[in-house]
């Protein structure tokens, strides 16, 4: 802190007064948790609950409308696509792709972001400045360019999406971790860890990191929502998962051509994306309220 020569009043507030505990009215998490429940139910039991093999096509049954519409059959609740594949089964299996892609991205950029953020916040000074400028530069490069570059080098696939989002997304994580680390390292228990003889690594791993897990959980939950939208967009643009994978973004792209007479081909994957994204967002907000890090650090 002092090396940066920031505002002196900040440097002086080594032990700021306790944050007064406000009894915030915590919103009810039911809707978000319900949406996430539906999502994870699909992920876990996809093989059991899908009425059909999501890849099995039957051209004689192509482009059937949902069962309640004229021409629909009870056998295909949400209708079929142009190849006669069951929509419901494809949506259920598509949840897995969303999860794999978003968790993959979070793991990659979370790891990069946590390590760089910890180093930046803990060591401060020149190291901090270097990492923060690097992340500024990184953030100013449009993610789409990185993705296009990777697509042209290794081809479009789910893996490409994971890698490209993974290596572009870390700056935000790094910033949050750095901020937490900056305030934690001035805490008395961290200073006492040093008095006890802990090394820098021991302090970061055993005194700082455990106290930022909550924040990371909240951040990840909210970021997953963004990644799901982004990866759907990439698939939609043909830069992500390729046919015949079950992927909601891809289903949107495929259905787009038939939108004028087969509304269900874009509507249901769209609803699936929306519900999942809203589920993660609401849950993230709720987690933020109940896991208020300031409470934890008292």
């Amino acid at each position: 802190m002092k090396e940066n020569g920031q505002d002196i009043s900040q440097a002086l507030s080594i032990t700021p007064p306790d944050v007064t505990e406000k009894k915030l009215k915590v919103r009810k998490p039911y809707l978000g948790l319900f949406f996430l429940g539906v999502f994870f139910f699909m992920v876990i039991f996809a093989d059991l609950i899908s009425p059909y093999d999501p890849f099995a096509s039957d051209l004689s049954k192509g482009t059937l409308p949902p069962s309640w519409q004229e021409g629909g059959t009870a056998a295909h609740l949400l209708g079929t696509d142009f190849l006669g594949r069951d929509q419901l089964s494809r949506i259920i299996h598509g949840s897995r792709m969303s999860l794999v892609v978003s968790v993959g991205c979070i793991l990659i950029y979370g790891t990069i972001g946590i390590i760089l953020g910890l180093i930046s916040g803990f060591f401060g000074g020149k190291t901090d400045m270097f990492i923060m400028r690097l992340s500024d530069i990184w953030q100013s490069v449009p993610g789409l360019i990185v993705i296009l570059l990777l697509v042209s080098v290794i081809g479009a696939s789910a893996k490409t999406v994971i890698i490209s989002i993974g290596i572009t997304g870390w700056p935000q994580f790094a910033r949050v971790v750095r901020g937490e680390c900056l305030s934690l390292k001035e805490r008395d228990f961290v200073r006492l860890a040093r008095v006890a003889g802990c090394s820098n690594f021991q302090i970061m791993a055993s005194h700082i990191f455990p106290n930022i897990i909550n924040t990371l959980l909240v951040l990840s939950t909210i970021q997953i929502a963004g990644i799901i939208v982004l990866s759907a967009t990439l698939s939609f643009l043909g830069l992500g998962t390729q046919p015949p994978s079950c992927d909601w973004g891809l289903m949107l792209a495929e259905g787009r051509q038939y939108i004028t007479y087969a509304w269900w081909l874009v509507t249901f994957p769209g609803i699936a994306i929306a519900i999942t994204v809203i589920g993660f967002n609401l849950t993230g907000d709720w987690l933020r309220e109940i896991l208020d890090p300031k409470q934890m650090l008292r």
Partner: protein
Amino acid sequence: MSKKKIISVENLKKYFPITKGFIFTNVIGNVKAVDNISFDILEGQTLGLVGESGCGKSTTANVLLGLEPPTSGQIKFQGEDIAQFSKTQLFSFRRNIQAVFQDPFRSLSPRKKVKQIISEPMSVHRVGLREMQYERVMELLSLVGLSPEHAELYPHEFSGGQRQRIAIARALSLNPKTIILDEPLSALDVSIQAQILNLLIDLQKKFNLTFLIISHDLAVVEHISDNIGVMYLGILAEIAPSDKLYSNPKHPYTVALLESVPIADPDAKVEVSLEGEVPSPLNPPPGCRFHPRCPKAKAECKKTEPEMKEITSGHFVSCHLY
């Protein structure tokens, strides 16, 4: 003197530079948090360090603990300059000097169990096997007046006084020679302060501990201290054996502090003669730092800074009156 010096501080200075600019930083001033202080602490004794908030007490503690490098001056531990220590020497030196801080709500890792908190210094220094460390934790818990089942709990399950006991147990775990106590009672209820103070006195007797105890309140350190140093704006105004300091204070600042000590009712704090703002350590007044607030200031006081003089054996004052 029969007892040997365990810590001696010579001409210690700690300045915090105030910098401006982003990439090309330049220093635009120094916060002179500690500005040339010297004192000794004898083995098994207690030095009390008192003074208003912001006078540099905690900074002195941090430098002694090796948390901050000194700007200049020497700190000797059992006669050896700690600045000359190698990395490994410094690591083992840390075993000898532990600390207890003011706010027990902040000084314990919130996500660790009491047994982990107390045994951490032992595991860091690889003292004993896990079972021995556990036994030691049990022993320490009973030493500080807690019970064995407390080992499995988390800090938030305890009251302030109990947490301070945990902090003390941790500080004791490596059998240190010295413990630095930075305002160990200030965050506690008055009723609990006495208990913790008595605990500290007991432990000191039992283990021949050397204490540096810091407080903004003279009354707190009176009973426990053998010597008391009074700090003002980064300097030591007066340092003396406690009975002398209380019965015969010399420095006008000490006199003022003693007058403002509430005798019976701790809530009725009447600041008798300490008027005026504490000047900033960024820009201490020239001459004697206390002169803008001193009732006895002379012309000389505005110009020259007084030097530390020994007026009777062990009683040092830095004031032009003597």
